[in-house]
C-alpha cells in the first residue's frame, strides 16, 4: 500500500523524507566503502527486474485473484542491506514519478515503510541469523514467509501511524489497523512464497550466482554487531525524534495512540455491522491533532456553539464558494486561451 500525498501533513511528510534521506546517505556511504564496481549495473538492472517481475502475475489457487512480487525482502536477501535499500528507493522513486503511485512528498514515507524495515530490520535481525549459511529449501521458505509478513506488517502499521499523525483522515486507530493488517497478512503470505520460490530456484539452477552475489555484497558475509547497532541507533534516533516532536505539538494525539497501542483503550463491543462500531469509537475518542473538540454526532446547534470550531461562518463560506468558482473559471479560461493560441501557432 503506498502512502499518498493528500493524506499527509507537511510535518509528517518532511520528517519521513528526512529520515529516508538520512538512511539513504548512510547506505550510499557504507556501500561506497566496500563496493565491487560490478554491483553498480547489477543494482540498477535488478531494480528494473522488480518492475518487470511485477508484470508477470499468476493465479492464486482458489481465489481467482493474482499475486506478484513486491521486492524489498528479495532484494535484501540477494544484495544485502545497503544495496537493497538503494535499489528499493530507486524503484519507489520511479513508481512515484511514472506511475504517480503515492506522490513525491509521500515518497519519504514509502521509502521508509517499504525499504527501511525489510533492509535494516528484518533482514539483518531475522532472516540472516535464521538462515545463515543453511541452504535448506524448507528453512528458506519458512524464513522468507515470516520475514515478508513481518516487513509488510510493519509497513502497514506505519501507514496507519503516518495517516493518523497527519490528521487528514477521520479513521480511528483501531478500525484502521483492523483494515490494514489482515490485508497485508494475506499479501505477505503470497509474496513470501514467491520470494522463497525464486531464491530456491536460483539456488538450484545457478548456485554460483547467489554465491558470487553474497561475496560481493558488503553486509552479507560478516555481520558485525557494531554495524547493526549503529543502524539501529540511527533508526531509533530518527523515529524517536519524530515521535517526540509530535508529542510536543500534539500531546493528545500521541497519548491516545499510545493508549491504544498498549491496549488500554479496547475496541468497543459490536452492535450491528461496522457502522455502529465506528460510531462508538468516534464517540469515545478525540485523538487527532487539530481535532481537539468533542465530536457531537448530528447535533448541529452544539456544533455552532463549540468555540474550537474552525472559524468559518456561513457568510464567508458563501463568498468563498463564489470566489472559488470565479477563480476556477478564470483558470479554465487561461488554459483554453493558451491551448487555442498554441494550436493557431502550429
Amino acid at each position: 500500500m503506498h502512502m499518498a500525498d493528500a493524506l499527509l501533513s507537511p510535518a509528517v511528510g518532511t520528517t519521513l523524507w528526512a529520515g529516508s534521506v538520512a538512511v539513504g546517505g548512510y547506505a550510499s556511504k557504507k556501500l561506497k566503502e566496500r563496493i565491487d564496481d560490478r554491483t553498480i549495473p547489477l543494482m540498477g538492472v535488478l531494480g528494473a527486474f522488480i518492475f518487470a517481475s511485477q508484470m508477470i502475475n499468476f493465479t492464486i489457487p482458489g481465489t481467482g485473484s493474482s499475486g506478484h512480487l513486491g521486492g524489498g525482502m528479495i532484494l535484501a536477501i540477494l544484495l544485502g542491506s545497503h544495496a537493497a535499500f538503494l535499489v528499493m528507493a530507486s524503484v519507489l522513486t520511479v513508481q512515484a514519478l511514472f506511475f504517480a503511485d503515492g506522490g513525491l512528498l509521500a515518497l519519504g514515507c514509502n521509502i521508509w515503510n517499504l525499504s527501511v524495515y525489510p533492509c535494516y530490520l528484518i533482514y539483518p535481525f531475522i532472516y540472516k541469523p535464521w538462515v545463515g549459511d543453511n541452504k535448506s529449501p524448507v528453512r528458506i521458505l519458512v524464513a522468507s514467509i515470516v520475514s515478508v509478513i513481518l516487513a509488510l506488517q510493519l509497513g502497514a502499521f506505519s501507514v496507519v501511524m503516518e495517516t493518523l499523525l497527519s490528521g487528514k483522515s477521520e479513521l480511528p486507530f483501531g478500525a484502521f489497523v483492523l483494515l490494514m493488517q489482515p490485508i497485508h497478512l494475506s499479501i505477505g503470505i503470497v509474496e513470501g512464497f514467491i520470494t522463497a520460490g525464486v531464491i530456491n530456484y536460483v539456488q538450484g539452477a545457478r548456485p554460483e550466482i547467489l554465491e558470487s552475489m553474497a561475496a560481493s555484497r558488503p553486509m552479507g558475509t560478516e555481520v558485525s554487531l557494531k554495524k547493526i547497532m549503529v543502524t539501529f541507533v540511527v533508526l531509533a534516533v530518527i523515529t524517536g525524534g519524530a515521535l517526540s516532536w509530535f508529542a510536543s505539538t500534539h500531546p493528545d494525539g500521541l497519548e491516545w495512540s499510545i493508549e491504544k497501542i498498549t491496549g488500554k483503550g479496547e475496541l468497543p463491543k459490536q452492535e450491528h455491522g461496522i457502522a455502529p462500531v465506528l460510531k462508538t469509537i468516534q464517540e469515545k475518542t478525540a485523538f487527532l491533532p487539530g481535532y481537539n473538540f468533542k465530536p457531537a454526532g448530528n447535533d448541529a446547534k452544539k456544533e455552532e456553539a463549540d468555540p474550537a470550531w474552525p472559524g468559518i461562518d456561513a457568510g464567508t463560506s458563501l463568498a468563498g464558494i463564489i470566489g472559488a468558482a470565479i477563480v476556477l473559471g478564470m483558470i479554465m479560461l487561461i488554459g483554453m486561451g493558451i491551448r487555442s493560441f498554441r494550436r493557431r501557432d502550429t
Partner: protein
Amino acid sequence: MTFDEQYFDIGRLDRLSYRETCVHRLDPRAKVIAVMLFLLTVISFPKYEIVALAPFFLFPVLLLTVGEIPVRFIIKKIIVVSPFAIFIGIFNPLLDARTFAVIPGFVVSAGWVSFFSILLKFTLTISAALLLIATTSFPGVCHALRRLGFPALFVSQLLFLYRYLFVLMEEAMRIIRARDMRSFGSRGTGRKVFVRIIGILFLRTVDRAERIYYAMLSRGFQGDIPSLKRSRMALTDLAFLSMMIAYLSIFRFFPVTEGIGRVAQELLG
C-alpha cells in the same frame, strides 16, 4: 488495469517528456524545486480547507497547456491511482457527521468537506508529480537530484533502472506471451511455472548485468559514472522560481479567493 497498459503508459509519459516547449526547456532543478514547494504548500492547508485550494489549479493547468500535455491522459492516470486515497478518505463522511453549514439553507457535513478537501489535494499533488515527469525527461530529473546533493550512487542506480526498465518490461511481456501461447487457459499459469519464470527472468537479469558490466569496462569504466556538465540555471529559470514562490505565498497566506467572492457578492448585491 493490466500491466501491459501500465507499461505503455510509462512509455507514453516518457515520450511526452522529450518534447520541446518552453516548459520542457526550463532547468530540471528549477522544476523539481518548484514542484516540491507546490506540494508542501498544498499539503499545508488544514483539513477543512476547500476554497483556498482553487487558485492552486493554475500551476498544473499552466504546465498542461504550455507543455502541450494531453489532459485526458493525465486525468486517466490520476483516476487509476486514486483508490487508496479515496478508500481512506471515504470514512470521513461516515465518521464526521457534524454539520458544516456552508450555504444558508443547505446542510453539508464536515466529513464531506474534509473528504472533498482530500480529493482536491490528491488531484493537485498527483497531477503536479505527473506533470513534472511529463515536462522533464527522467534523466533530467536525475541530474537535477544529483546536483541538489543526492548521493551519486543512488542517482546512478536510478539511471540504470530507468534505462533497463523498458528493456526488461518488454522481455517480461514477451515471456508472458510465450507462456500464454502454450498454456491454454489456467494450466501452466500456476505458482510453479510462475516462480520458474521469475527465476529465469532473474538469471537473465544477472547475466545481462554482467554483460553490461563488461560493456562498461571495455569503455574504460573505473568505478565512477562520468557525466558532462548540463545546462546551468539561466535567468528564465530564476525568474520562474521567484514567480513560483510569489504565487505560492500569496495564495497560501492571503484569502484571495474569498476576497474575490466577497467583492462579487457585493457587486451582485
